[in-house]
């Protein structure tokens, strides 16, 4: 049946054309959202990078000033190195913990689901509640961390007051939440067919050989995925650093995003903050590409051979 609406003159006539139109209608919310919430802000950020603006006085063109001042800004370099240290420790340690625990939890023992729950639950604690809880745990006189240290006969530590201990404290908080990665490993491990292990056992492969030659290669895509997600996530750590230490003591926990936030919303340096955002973007993209190149090539994909 031919329609009789006036607008049908403008609709595509062929079947393929109509299908294309339908397809674009379906994905149009995403296209609009991409333009509005990604492309336009990215343009605004570019514009801001070469301007001085405090949201009140009229913006002033300053060229590459922000890039120059970034180069000379000690706090910028501090925040970059704090975030890098945080990432370099928390991501690999979290990865090893998550993978190791997933291996142990992938056994058939009674009560294993209780263990899985206990290890997973910390990772879903809301960040603000988590921050409040750990601020109390790290209390120097009465907090759980020092209660535990003193029970072991060790001296107490002023976790949040000593610059050398504040960042390790935040890393400990991050590691408490390693369960979300662990669950993904666990699912990957459960996807490995038993026949692989049975065949290996018949060939006389021990536990270590099976881990090295079967488990790790087959789970390597998952490890790779968690590594990328972990790096991107840890470069964006904010809530804990702001609520537990607010960057202190002596900038020891001034993570990158917190510094950006302070510039934008406390000092109202919108231009400088936008320049910092671009650098964050480039660093994360650079790291991701680096990991893709040097780790991605070692990942074993089943359909690749």
């Amino acid at each position: 049946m031919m329609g009789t609406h006036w607008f049908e003159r403008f609709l595509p006539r062929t079947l393929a054309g109509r299908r294309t139109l339908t397809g674009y209608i379906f994905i149009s919310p995403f296209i609009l959202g991409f333009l509005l919430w990604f492309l336009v802000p990215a343009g605004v950020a570019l514009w801001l990078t070469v301007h001085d603006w405090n949201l009140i006085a009229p913006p002033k063109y300053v060229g590459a000033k922000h890039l120059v001042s970034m180069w000379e800004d000690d706090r910028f370099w501090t925040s970059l190195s704090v975030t890098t240290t945080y990432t370099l420790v928390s991501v690999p340690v979290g990865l090893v913990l998550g993978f190791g625990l997933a291996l142990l939890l992938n056994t058939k023992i009674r009560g294993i689901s209780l263990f899985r729950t206990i290890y997973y639950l910390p990772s879903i604690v809301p960040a603000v509640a988590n921050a409040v809880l750990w601020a109390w745990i790290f209390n120097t006189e009465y907090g759980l961390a020092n209660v535990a240290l003193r029970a072991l006969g060790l001296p107490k530590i002023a976790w949040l007051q000593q610059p050398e201990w504040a960042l390790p404290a935040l890393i400990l908080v991050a590691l408490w939440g390693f369960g979300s990665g662990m669950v993904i490993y666990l699912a990957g491990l459960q996807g490995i067919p038993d026949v692989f292990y049975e065949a290996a056992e018949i060939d006389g492969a021990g536990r270590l050989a099976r881990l090295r030659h079967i488990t790790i290669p087959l789970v390597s895509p998952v490890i790779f995925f968690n590594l990328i997600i972990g790096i991107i996530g840890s470069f964006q750590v904010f809530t804990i650093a702001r609520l537990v230490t607010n960057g202190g003591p002596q900038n020891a926990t001034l993570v990158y995003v917190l510094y950006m936030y302070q510039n934008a919303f406390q000092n109202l340096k919108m231009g400088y903050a936008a320049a910092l955002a671009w650098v964050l973007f480039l660093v994360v993209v650079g790291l991701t590409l680096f990991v893709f190149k040097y780790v991605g090539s070692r990942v074993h994909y089943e359909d690749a051979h």
Partner: protein
Amino acid sequence: MAQKQRVASSGGGFRPPLHRVVWERRLWRFLIVAILSIGAVVMALPFVWLLVSSFKPLEKIFIFPPEWIPDPFRPENYVEALVYKPFGLYLWNTLRIVVLNLAAILLSASFCGYGFARIRFPGRDFWFALVLATLMIPYFVLMVPQFIMFTRFGWIDTFHPLTIPFFFGGGAFNIFLFRQFFRSLPEELADAGRIDGCTEYGIYWRIMLPLSKPALATVAIFTFLAAWNDYIGPLLYLRSDYNFTVAIGLATFRSVMSTQWNLLMAASSAMILPVILLFFFAQRYFVDGLVLSGLKG
């Protein structure tokens, strides 16, 4: 006993005797359980500490060594903490945001996901690559320019910045999740619909969406968690106390109550409890969401 002996010896000379294998297995099991138990105690201790502290009177908070059973037991902490700041109102605000986000994301992301999953058209792969690319862009990169845009729109101190953007695609991760799910449904269902004269929109709405309850549940749970946990969004955009969410309410409560750790722990437990309950009732969907995000890329 004799039976066992025979089985063991029938294995041939190159195999270790059965009793050794059995003992080795038992030893491994014991080791695993031991390691897991120690780890579980370490993981659970902060929760125990949270709960114990939340039921103590203030004078029992500052005692060393700490008491592990609160005496006197003081549940009034919860009442005091939750009425000190209008947490009832904060809860109501959070729920309003959650409901709007649910409507936005479930509709918008499933709609887009359907287009990417089941309609073949030129340019689709390009746009889908863009979906995956936005998945990789850190939120904080666009925080400042988005803030300036929303300021221009007059959206400061309203829920708009926390809700309206989600009507446009509902987030790359959710589109991705729906796409993966729709791809797993059989094409015959859509064909049957076409024969009956259904348009593509009808197939999406009347056939595919009703079959997508697991995906809808997973996305709904993650949407709830994101809104419930969000700190940076409300921190940037909500100014008046009567607009606060639970998360931002707890953060300001912390700055007011600096050392009243018993009340702070009570408020924190109250914020964590719904999340844990949700986990126990919908455990399957939690894992599904994580796994779908991690494995089927």
